[in-house]
């Protein structure tokens, strides 16, 4: 296993040129999540339109993995209906918990398949999941569910 399996070209591209970055109006919910062990943080906004994820915007600070993951996540969920965005979330979560054992489905995960290598590095899985966790929390709040803790 070499570190190049984690630092895929796609990841470095998203890191250097992140998509959908910068907080935007309007939004239904805003959350702030921290990765307490390393200090990565993200503030993320979600706007829903019925069952559609109308917009996701964020402001974040952190390592290449957490930054690239936010960018890829926003690409994947914006414009999707909630059910399919949530199933993408589930599939990404499963990939990140796979310790490198899962062959990712490019049709579903698109650029997010590049994170398969990260799943072999337990200390970095949290970085890759930070934006996704924030997104799910924000969606929950936007739909009036009881919010999770925003740490």
């Amino acid at each position: 296993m070499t570190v190049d399996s984690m630092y895929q070209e796609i990841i470095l591209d998203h890191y250097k040129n992140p998509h959908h970055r910068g907080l935007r109006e309007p939004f239904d919910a805003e959350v702030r999540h921290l990765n307490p062990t390393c200090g990565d943080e993200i503030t993320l906004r979600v706007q829903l339109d019925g069952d559609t994820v109308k917009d996701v915007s964020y402001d974040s600070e952190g390592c290449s993995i957490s930054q690239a993951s936010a960018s890829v996540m926003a690409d994947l969920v914006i414009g999707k209906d909630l059910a399919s965005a949530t199933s993408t979330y589930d599939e990404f979560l499963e990939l990140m918990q796979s310790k490198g054992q899962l062959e990712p489905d490019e049709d579903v995960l698109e650029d997010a398949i590049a994170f398969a290598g990260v799943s072999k590095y337990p200390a970095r899985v949290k970085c890759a999941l930070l934006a996704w966790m924030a997104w799910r929390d924000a969606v929950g709040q936007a739909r009036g569910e009881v919010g999770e803790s925003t740490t």
Partner: protein
Amino acid sequence: MTLDAAAKLAYDISRVRKDFPILDREVRPGVPLVYLDNAATSQKPQQVLDTMRDYYEQHNANVHRGIHTLAEEATALYEGARDKVASFVNAADRREVIFTKNSTEALNLLARTIPLAAGDEVVVTEMEHHSNLVPWQLATQRTGATLKWIGLTDDGRLDLADLDRTITSKTKVVAFVHQSNLLGTVNPVDVVVAKAREVGAITVLDASQSVPHMGIDVQALGVDAVAFTGHKMCGPTGIGLLWGRAELLDSLPPFLGGGEMIDEVTMAGSTWAVLPHKFEAGTPMIAEAVGLGAAIDYLSDLGMDAIRDHEHELTAYALERLQRVEGLRIIGPATTEDRGGAISFALDGIHPHDVGQLLDELGVAVRVGHHCARPACLRYGVPATTRASVHLYTTTGEIDALVEGLDHVRRYFSR
């Protein structure tokens, strides 16, 4: 032979390294370990490992309660470790040395037992480890007292101009770190203590990072209580220390209740054992205390002065080489003056997590993150740092490996 050369001969680094089996291991085949995460925890010499093994193989029993041979041997070893600690930090009385789980527990013991009330103030600094911050946050919240803190200067030092504003007649406790684990700064204990004494405040020193690297003399420091932790001083995990002046410790209520800490127990109530047992409820960490005793012997044999000189030289070398890495900014003092060998830095445009990951690929172990000192990170406008920290077995060759590694990191991220 010059004096200098004689001192170098006396401190034979290659012989020292042979005492630490782990320093021989490879992180991956062909990639030797370069361990620069010593501020988080130190490695253990064979002497400590052997002593702990021998304890379990030959002497294991519960302490204090038994009259059989093993119980007496175990008690003698455990109490012998207390004597070693007492003499290592020059305590006036062995009863002033309390075994705890770690520094964190020692500091919590104080924050839980020192009486505070609404209107009282506790003063800490902005460079505290969370262990010497959060317990005081809890204590002030619980009692209605107020928490204040001494700020920091841009070059990583305590802002002493803040002393008169923060330490006032309302101050009951001044708790501060001797050597910062994030910045490496060694604080002027005498200045803070003088001010605290003027107002009659109790002084608490977090010496977790100073005891292992320069040794301390608790009487000369003039503070009222000191916390430190075994695993950073070549001892095992699970054992820490509280030293406190007997008058102070005698005046405090117990922290944890249970066996060993009592004098007389009835269903209606209990009275407390004398020091140090009043603060050692339950079966203590016996093997760990014995292992710590072996670590103290090890440090004393090398000599704390020799260790300090060796690390001073390494720190000077590391500061010099690191500052020539393009885009690198030291967070903390940039010179060796009043500074230890924990060096935090930021590398332009590359997050510490990525720095640490790529260094690990080369076998170089550093720590990344906020190092349990988040407020100080915020103060310097960095969410996290990369930190390299030396110990008595670190070599200049390992600093070279770090610097070469950082060049590799920069090339990797500019591709």
